[in-house]
């Protein structure tokens, strides 16, 4: 079933702030096996010009994808979440995410398409810090695969 095009351009309310902790960054860096000292050693991060340890580039996805959940689980949109796979992912950074950040995400549906029976939804998540400054924008393409013919 085709999704309702009137959802294109819809913006959802900003999420409650997510506070980025040093140990959460460490846990993530260890999970991806990345030993860059800027992720775990405040002095190493400072030597690079950062006020605290920074997060690996894809860390913020955990936060933006949770925010995108508002969109994908919106019953009015009617996306079949059980069939959703991740198509594309892109980030554009004003600065790296760092420990101590309190981040909010504002999600917008950028486009809705139907391609070969698949529903394709593009969601943009704008991430801002506590002072309202832009940190990063995440674009996520979600593809709900067409149900198989019975």
């Amino acid at each position, binding site marked *: 079933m085709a999704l309702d095009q009137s959802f294109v351009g819809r913006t959802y309310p900003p999420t409650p702030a997510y506070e980025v902790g040093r140990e959460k960054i460490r*846990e*993530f860096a*260890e*999970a*991806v*096996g*990345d030993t*860059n000292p*800027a*992720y775990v050693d405040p002095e190493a991060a400072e*030597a*690079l*010009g*950062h006020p605290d340890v*920074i997060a*690996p*580039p*894809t860390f913020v*996805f*955990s936060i933006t*994808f*949770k925010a995108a959940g508002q969109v994908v689980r919106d019953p009015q949109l009617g996306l079949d979440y059980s069939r959703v*796979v*991740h*198509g*594309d*992912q*892109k*980030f*554009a*950074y004003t*600065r*790296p995410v760092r420990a101590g950040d309190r981040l909010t995400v504002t999600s917008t549906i950028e486009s809705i398409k139907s391609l070969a029976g698949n529903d394709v939804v593009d969601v943009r998540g704008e991430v801002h810090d506590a002072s309202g400054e832009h940190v990063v924008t995440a*674009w996520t393409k979600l593809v709900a695969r067409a149900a198989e013919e019975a």
Partner: protein
Amino acid sequence: MTANRTYESVEVGTELPAQTFPVTRAALVQYAGASGDFNPIHWNERFAREVGLPDVIAHGMFTMAEAIRVVTDWVGDPGAVVEYGVRFTKPVVVPDDDKGATVEVSGKVAVKLDDNLVRVDLTAMSEGKKVLGMSRAVVRLA
């Protein structure tokens, strides 16, 4: 931000040191916990097969996180990455053995942009298949 590569020192075609990343079942469980993505296709073989996959597959975001290390290790400061995007073209299938899978990532400078920015194009392969498409990072060099 203090990249340890200068814009002047690179040319279109400059190759970044390639890396091979292991992907084991244990790594996927650890990544699930760290990222909060507990989709069972990344750790439960029975479930993965039920939804038509050949076996457990890696999180696309795990592969994306590994691939950018070719860039961040090269440039030194991960904060120098100003854009990063990929397309998930093929899943990384991770067998339940001690070896798991591997992802081989290479990169080269594709375009020199203004403001000391360069675009690096990445190639990520697993079992001879391209697992990321349109994999590009824009990085600010010194």
